[in-house]
């Protein structure tokens, strides 16, 4: 029954509108079998809405998608059998113990008695919660809840595991541990992983490929290394007097790529950045522009994000945009 295809998720013009607001706009992309795919974007970009459509919790306004060959609108039950989901907000029954939560899940997914027992032990071991299995979930810490949810998402051998902001609000140590679990299950169980995040380092550490989404639109999708190369071999960031004029001058140099101004800083890509620094300083001196600071480094996903959206993802954090608030509202809505 399962179609043999290398692309485990295929979306066709997936769109979701909430009234006037287009939360997800005409998404078409593929996710390959066995990869860790990252969906990157600021809060309110449409990441969660996309996951909710792919996991059959929301109906698309138009377009559709297939998961493991099954249509998310017409073959919901088949889709549901093939996916595991870890939602952004905890979705545990806190008045049950960790083990009872897993038992609930196992029965909902129709695992047989033997499988149930073995699998519960396996996943509890995998996330190091065996000792806490009989503790009520309301006495778990945030990190433990997250781990339990990841364990639960894995129980029924899903083909694809969706993780919506898996480490949101967790401390650095717990985040590291969860990253390790994600890598481990991708390797040991061969599960394809679709995760959303607005932490660049998370995507950089975990993912093979990422898609950048902003205002509901997919801006780019590619391997991380390709994306970084597209920014330039090295990234130079400098601050100077008369930045506008300096940007215009530099734009005329053919070795300068993707120049951007951002918060008083000028950022651009070059090859062999170390050797270019004296040249840049020379140009500035001739034009009587004073350079206050200059640095060269390897490009990061932050640079990629900046070059595609014109701002860093940190600009978005802290300030709750109106879109972000909307997505929150719809979370509790019908």
């Amino acid at each position: 029954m399962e179609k043999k295809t290398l692309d485990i998720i295929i979306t066709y013009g997936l769109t979701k509108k909430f009234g006037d607001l287009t939360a997800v706009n005409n998404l078409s992309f593929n996710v390959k079998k066995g990869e860790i795919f990252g969906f990157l974007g600021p809060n309110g970009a449409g990441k969660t809405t996309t996951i909710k459509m792919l996991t059959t919790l929301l109906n698309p306004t138009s377009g559709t998608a297939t998961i493991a060959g099954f249509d998310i609108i017409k073959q919901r039950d088949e889709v549901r059998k093939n996916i595991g989901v870890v939602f952004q907000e905890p979705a545990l029954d806190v008045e049950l113990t960790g083990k009872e939560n897993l038992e609930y899940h196992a029965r909902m997914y129709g695992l047989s008695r033997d499988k149930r027992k073995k699998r519960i032990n396996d996943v509890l071991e995998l996330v190091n919660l065996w000792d806490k299995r009989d503790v009520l979930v309301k006495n778990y810490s945030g990190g433990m809840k997250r781990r339990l949810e990841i364990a639960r998402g894995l129980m029924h051998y899903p083909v694809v595991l969706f993780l919506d902001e898996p480490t949101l609000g967790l401390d650095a140590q717990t985040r590291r541990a969860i990253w390790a679990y994600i890598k481990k299950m991708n390797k040991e169980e061969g599960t394809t992983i679709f995760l959303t995040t607005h932490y660049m380092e998370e995507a950089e550490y975990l993912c093979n490929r990422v898609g950048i989404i902003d205002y509901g639109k997919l801006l780019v999708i590619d391997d991380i290394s390709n994306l970084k190369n597209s920014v330039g071999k090295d990234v130079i960031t400098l601050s100077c007097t008369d930045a506008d004029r300096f940007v215009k001058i530099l734009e005329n140099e053919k070795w300068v790529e993707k120049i951007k101004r951002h918060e008083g800083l000028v950022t651009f890509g070059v090859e062999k950045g170390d050797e270019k620094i004296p040249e840049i300083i020379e140009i500035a001196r001739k034009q009587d522009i004073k350079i206050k600071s200059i640095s060269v480094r390897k490009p990061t996903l932050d640079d990629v994000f900046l070059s595609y959206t014109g701002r860093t993802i940190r600009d978005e954090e802290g300030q709750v945009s109106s879109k972000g608030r909307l997505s929150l509202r719809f979370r509790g809505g019908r």
Partner: protein
Amino acid sequence: MRTNELQAIYIMWLRQMKRFLRFKTRLATMVIQPLFFFLLLGSGFRQAVMPGLEGGYIDFLAPGIVAMAILFSSMFTGVSVLWDKQFGFLQEVLVAPVSRFSIIIGRTIGGATTALIQGFIILFIAIILGIKISSGAGLILTIVFMLLLSFTAVGFGLIIASKMNDFQSFSLIMNLIIMPLLFLSSAFFPVTQDKTLQTIAYFNPLFYMIDGLRGSLIGKSNVFPPLIDLIVVCIICIIMLTLGSYLFSKSEV
């Protein structure tokens, strides 16, 4: 496929039983509240003489209190979907490969079981206090009414839960709709003493449930024969459950 759905229904039922039995304070309040009503009203109006009242007031009151316990408990079950929604657990339920129909059945059976346990506790206490049961067949019919009342109330709770997103609206509905309906249902006093009261009662779904419960349990002071009530109650129950299921299946998280 079919065993999958049965397993799902079973585990949903089990979850509710665990939650119900694990939290003794919740269990206690849900039994104690109707018990207070029963003992206080029962002793306060023991000597009261009202038109439409045959036999003692305690006998009259018992079915009303049993109904009240079942009603509150079942509605709470239906509305607890809201609770699951707020705590995110509903997503886990909805994303599972289980039909919406089974999810509703699971919740309804779970709710009915907890409600019946509470109903039986009240009934048992009432019998100890000396109310007179009409007959064995009447007792069986009483249980049928208790079940139907419970299903209806779960259905009504599901309707509220599908249409609302917070608990403030729930308490509003309890106070502005359920309490008046309960008072106008002949649960605490006969409605036959007043023409207007009686007319209003005929439009009150709860009236048929309590009248039927009274007719079958003590066989006195009831307005309609229990079997007529039974037909009306069946129809109301089907409407409520269908509507509740429909709205719930339409709801998105």
